[in-house]
């Protein structure tokens, strides 16, 4: 073989050997262990410490709050509002003190030493509205509010306990502008022509007002006054009212109980289609299981005039009565649904004591 060919082949062989050696050192040894990737990467990725520990991990120290939360319907997790626990309560924190005299001091010290501090949210409204603001897309089963209508600028925590937010309503602090029922009575002469002297309306087209929720009456009159809600006579009547007069009228009508007798003379009638609908459309979430709402801004429906309920639902459906949540609910109703629901609520009696109390 000619000398130059031998040299060429030798060079080639050396180059190949060098390539193999270089590859051996450059490719990580775990590379083909499980496939065409670096096998060690799997354990490296799995090594990161978790940041969120889950609500259960809070229970060992914060037992009282944890029990209160887990007994409530609130399913939002601790770390949703308080932030990830991370290193909380801190790896180098001393063991829990057992001496009750020194407990407080030690807890402060422990807290100071703890590397991870939890958030104590001050703007609770911001947190609550993350889930409870009424926006398009939220399922109807999720309790939702329009903050400006529901609470104005008040923080949610003013009425609700954030850990178990369901309210027992008599405990709610009364707002300042309660209005005076006596002054409202004097001003109600003009209303009586249509809505009746006892708040039981003279025409099936006009709503009963006796025992209606106070805040709802205020809201209704305000939206008539601004023209947001349209009904020719009511717009005209409400235009002349001041805020104080509205508050007085609302106080008066909500205090009326004469209506209850009229409601109760209605024969008890079972409306099974209505019962099914009420549960399917989640009406009771806001309007209460007996058509007697537990929220002051949501109207009572039990014993309301059927024709009025039909026209109200139609107005929500067509959008002529603008109210985001009700429009959404009402658009899911057929003509038949509207008839059955209004019949159901108009025939509903105040059966239990709580309902009677509310009316």
């Amino acid at each position: 073989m000619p000398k130059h060919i031998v040299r060429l082949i030798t060079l080639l062989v050396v180059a190949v050997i060098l390539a193999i050696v270089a590859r051996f050192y450059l490719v990580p040894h775990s590379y083909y262990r499980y496939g065409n990737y670096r096998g060690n990467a799997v354990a490296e990725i799995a090594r990161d410490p978790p940041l969120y520990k889950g609500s259960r991990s809070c229970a060992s120290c914060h037992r009282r709050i944890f029990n209160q939360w887990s007994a409530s319907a609130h399913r939002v997790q601790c770390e949703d509002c308080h932030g990830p626990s991370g290193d909380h309560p801190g790896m180098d924190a001393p063991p829990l003190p057992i001496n009750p005299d020194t407990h407080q001091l030690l807890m402060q010290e422990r807290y100071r030493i703890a590397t991870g501090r939890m958030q104590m949210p001050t703007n609770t409204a911001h947190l609550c509205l993350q889930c409870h603001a009424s926006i398009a897309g939220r399922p109807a089963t999720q309790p939702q509010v329009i903050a400006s209508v529901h609470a104005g600028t008040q923080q949610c925590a003013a009425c609700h306990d954030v850990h178990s937010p369901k309210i027992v309503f008599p405990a709610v602090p009364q707002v300042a502008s309660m209005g005076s029922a006596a002054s409202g009575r004097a001003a109600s002469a003009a209303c009586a022509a249509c809505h009746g002297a006892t708040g039981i309306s003279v025409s099936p087209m006009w709503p009963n007002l006796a025992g209606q929720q106070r805040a709802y009456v205020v809201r209704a009159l305000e939206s008539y006054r601004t023209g947001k809600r349209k009904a020719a006579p009511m717009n005209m009547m409400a235009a002349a009212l001041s805020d104080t007069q509205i508050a007085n009228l609302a106080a008066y009508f909500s205090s009326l109980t004469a209506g209850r007798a009229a409601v109760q003379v209605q024969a008890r009638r079972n409306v099974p289609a209505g019962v099914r609908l009420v549960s399917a459309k989640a009406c009771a979430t806001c309007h209460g299981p007996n058509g007697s709402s537990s929220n002051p801004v949501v109207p009572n429906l039990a014993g309301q005039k059927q024709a009025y309920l039909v026209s109200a639902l139609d107005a929500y459906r067509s959008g002529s009565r603008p109210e985001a949540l009700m429009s959404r609910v009402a658009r899911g109703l057929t003509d038949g649904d509207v008839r059955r629901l209004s019949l159901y609520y108009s025939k509903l009696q105040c059966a239990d004591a709580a309902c009677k109390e509310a009316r």
Partner: protein
Amino acid sequence: MTEKTPAVERRKVLRVIAGAVAAACGATALRLFGGSAKAAIRPADAPPPAIPGYDWTKHRWAFGVDATRCIGCLSCVAACKNENSVPRDTHHFRTWVERYAYLNGSDEPVVDSQSEPDALSTSPGNPTYPYRFPDRYGDQVVDKAFFVPKLCNHCSNPPCVQVCPVGATFRTKDGVVLIDQDYCIGCRYCVQACPYGARTFNEAMGVTDKCTWCYHRITKGLKPACVEVCPAGARVFGDLNDPQSDISVFLRENRVNVLKPEMGTHPNVYYVGIDRSVR
């Protein structure tokens, strides 16, 4: 004299180099064909990755999303970003939530997603909830609207893994598609290849980022962060090998769908309650 000495020294130097290279080759050959090296490069009998208390051959993870339950609170997005140090802007997400809204009798939905910055209002002052969906359809008639949580589908046949030129992304034996960020060269082929838009490029680190189903959590017996914090129970995660796990129950009790089944990717995220328009 001065001309001769360097020539001899050069030859010496070359000889020493050749000897060293030959010795290295010999050593390499020994290791290459020696017993221990052989085992290390043969996938079949390789020991599982060194994760304490965890054997990846015993699990088969899957994810379920019940879109009918999602309330669009974006707790999951916030938790994911915290847990995985995802950049806190509106362009980088490992998981995100889309809102589909049918307006004014239209057949085609308007989709609010992370790709449209207006769709998410941000409140930078709030570290817990940096994002929220605005109520942006005030005057319009919303015929139907719903939220769809999205994340990497951890496909059984992942196109992103196929296109990676350096083997920096792969599917583990327990069914999770991961990225070896030490090995990623930042070419972004995988970002383009993913039919679900589940991968984002982290410009600061120069590597691609994606959902790992919180691999560092699930290998320690925890749930992924988004599942842990979901207040509505819209996200379900578990082991298909365990018939009583959340996901096994979810798949038994629901009629599920996957996204873009026509792509042949065989996703492992199963959806309930999504519309025909959800892709």
